C-alpha cells in the first residue's frame, strides 16, 4: 500500500486524488471535511487548527498501518490542514483507492473516524458573537 500523509496550511482534494490515481484501481472513495458556517446554531467566523505535528504524523502513519492490516487497499492519502480556516475551507481529506469499492468505503470511514479520535490536532472555534470555543 502506498501512503501519503501530510499536514500543512492548505490542502486540496485534487492532490489526494492525484496521489491515489492508478489504472489498476477501479474505485476511489474520498472524504473531505470542510469548515461549516455554524456549530449548533452559532455562526462561525473561522476555526484555528493547531497540531503536535511530529506525533500527529506518527499517529496518522499508525492508522495507515492498521488499514494495511485490515484491507487490501492500494493507496491511501491523509491530508490535514492547520492554521486559520474559514467556512467552506477544507480541513481534512482522506482518499482511498482499491480494486473493490466496498472495502474502500469501509477503509475511508475507518480512517476519518480514527483520525478524529487519536490524532493530536485541535481546533479553536471563533464565533461571530466574539466568543471562542475550544
Amino acid at each position: 500500500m502506498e501512503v501519503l500523509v501530510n499536514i500543512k496550511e492548505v490542502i486540496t482534494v485534487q492532490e489526494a486524488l492525484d496521489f491515489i490515481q492508478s489504472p489498476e484501481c477501479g474505485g476511489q472513495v474520498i472524504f473531505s471535511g470542510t469548515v461549516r458556517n455554524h456549530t449548533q446554531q452559532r455562526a462561525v467566523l473561522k476555526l484555528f487548527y493547531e497540531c503536535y505535528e511530529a506525533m500527529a504524523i506518527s499517529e496518522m502513519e499508525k492508522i495507515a498501518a492498521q488499514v494495511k492490516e485490515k484491507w487490501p487497499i492500494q493507496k491511501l492519502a491523509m491530508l490535514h490542514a492547520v492554521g486559520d480556516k474559514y467556512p467552506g475551507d477544507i480541513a481534512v481529506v482522506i482518499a482511498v483507492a482499491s480494486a473493490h469499492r466496498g472495502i474502500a468505503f469501509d477503509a475511508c470511514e475507518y480512517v476519518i473516524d480514527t483520525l478524529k479520535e487519536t490524532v493530536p490536532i485541535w481546533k479553536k472555534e471563533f464565533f461571530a458573537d466574539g466568543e471562542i470555543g475550544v
Partner: protein
Amino acid sequence: MGILLFGAAKDIAGVPVLEKPAHVNNVGALKAWLYEVYPSLQQLKSMMIAVNRSYAVDMQALSDQDEIAVIPPVSGG
C-alpha cells in the same frame, strides 16, 4: 526536555512548555502534579500524556530524555 502543552491544556496553563519536577517519575505522577498545579485541567473531558510521541499509560516511567506532551481531547477533522 520540557513538557509540551497543547490546545485547552496550553490555554489553562498559560504556557506552551513546562519544566518537569524531578520527583515526577511516571505518567500517573505527572498527571497528579498537573492537576495539583492547574486544578482547571480537571475540567477537561480527558487528559492523555504522550511520551516520545505515543500515548502512555499511567505506570510508564519518565526520564529526562523523554519528549513528554499533555494531550487534551483532540478535535481534528
